């Protein structure tokens, strides 16, 4: 029990990260259902929140990867974890402001790696674990998801080609809701575990838990709540980019995309890969654009996202390292507090900036005009 004040601060920061993880990623599960009108936006985020909560209790395999597979836990101090989380949160909020569905997991992992390197040098990072468990899956998973979604899309249109358009839309909307629910569950299972892993890492660093321990029940419950709440708040900017920006989606494509995402995420979790649900969901949505004749993928939007993905790990690492530098420079508990005050201030600025071009449940489905924020439209048209 070396420093309980810092431990409490770290847990709070971790839960804050979990919250940003939730609202950044609501779109992965619900963007297509919202875009096709299968679910009203508010209902969609509520269902997704509940299922994220349930999903968080489902598995602990990924939490173990984060806690032990990426950095040598002996070198990790509480200050390192706090700084890493700060890196993750800042990157998540910046990409949310720009409406880019970047990976929350990479933001978190990048932040922790950056602060670990600043604290203990490059040797404290388990590079092999990082590349084989994070980087390679990050490259492969969107491709696999796109393949599965393209096959699914082609099959769905082929099998139902004799149905009337109306009947097809009606039928697949139901299927879409089901598959989106499974994705929400998968997201809770996969992403809530990452925060559990970090809190477990902090508890181990503080000596509260033994090395190699599993996440305690209170950690699982708090993480489940934080991610569910974040999901319910809804990251409308990201939802809009995913649902309207990439591909104009019809309900069969929505179902194909969500099924592909669910299958790939759940299978990978089973193997302990902490892959990014965002990368998978994006890959799937692009795949549905490829699998349907005449559908158009907006590659410029996809390219912007891919660029952000490449930068996520290093950028979050730089913020994490900087945050560690500040905390180390000031020193001790005060250093961590200074870090968190700076973090809170930056979050405030980003939130304030986002108010200027507001995206919410009213205008999330407005016609895509090239940017995240829709052009100003009268309220009644936007709601329709």
């Amino acid at each position, binding site marked *: 029990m070396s420093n309980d004040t810092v431990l409490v601060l770290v847990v709070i920061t971790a839960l804050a990260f979990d919250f940003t993880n939730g609202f950044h990623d609501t779109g992965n599960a619900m963007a297509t259902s919202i875009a096709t009108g299968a679910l009203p936006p508010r209902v969609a985020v509520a269902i997704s929140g509940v299922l994220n909560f349930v999903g968080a209790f489902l598995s602990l395999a990924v939490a173990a990867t984060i806690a032990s597979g990426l950095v040598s836990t002996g070198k990790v101090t509480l200050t390192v974890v706090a700084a890493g989380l700060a890196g993750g949160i800042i990157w998540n909020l910046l990409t949310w402001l720009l409406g880019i569905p970047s990976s929350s997991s990479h933001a978190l992992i990048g932040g922790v790696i950056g602060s670990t390197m600043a604290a203990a040098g490059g040797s404290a990072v388990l590079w*092999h674990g990082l590349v084989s468990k994070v980087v390679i899956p990050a490259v492969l998973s969107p491709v*696999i998801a796109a393949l599965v979604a393209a*096959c699914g899309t082609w099959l769905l249109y082929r099998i139902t080609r004799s149905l009337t358009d*109306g009947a097809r839309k009606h039928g697949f909307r139901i299927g879409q809701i089901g598959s989106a629910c499974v994705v929400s569950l998968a997201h809770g299972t996969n992403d809530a575990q990452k925060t559990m892993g970090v809190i477990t890492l902090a508890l181990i660093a503080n000596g509260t838990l033994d090395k190699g321990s599993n996440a305690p029940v209170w950690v699982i419950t708090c993480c489940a709540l934080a991610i569910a709440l974040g999901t319910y708040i809804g990251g409308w900017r990201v939802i809009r980019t995913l649902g309207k920006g990439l591909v104009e989606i019809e309900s069969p494509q929505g179902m194909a995309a969500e*099924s592909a995402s669910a*299958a790939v995420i759940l299978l990978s979790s*089973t193997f302990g890969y902490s892959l990014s649900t965002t990368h998978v969901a994006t890959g799937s949505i692009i795949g549905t654009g490829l699998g349907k004749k005449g559908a158009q993928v907006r590659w410029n939007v996809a390219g912007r996202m891919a660029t952000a993905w490449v930068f996520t790990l290093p950028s979050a690492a730089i913020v994490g390292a900087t945050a560690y530098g500040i905390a180390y420079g000031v020193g001790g508990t005060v250093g961590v507090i200074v870090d968190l005050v700076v973090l809170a201030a930056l979050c405030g600025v980003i939130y304030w900036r986002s108010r200027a071009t507001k995206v919410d449940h009213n205008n999330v489905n407005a016609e895509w005009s090239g940017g995240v924020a829709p052009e100003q439209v009268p309220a009644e048209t936007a709601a329709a």
Partner: protein
Amino acid sequence: MSWINLTALWKIVVFGLVAGAGLPALFAGGLYSLSLGPNRARAAAAGAEGGDSDVLVGGSVVGMVLAAIAFLIILAAIGWCVYEIYTLGHPSPAKK
């Protein structure tokens, strides 16, 4: 020390295709059988006149039974997956 776990990779691709594309295809098959029957001809006729029907049930009993079987298989598959993930994700209940 291998960089890529090829066993995991092919399993993810193959099972991904079976579950991620196969199950929705089964759902589509279910929708198709559900639409068989007299109502469908009427809906198609309405469609030809410019109207659009979103009626799903065609009226054929065999079609409805087949559709029900397809939908039940999908639900069972999802339930089984969730159960598998639960058991795999909590490997050692003995450990404190």
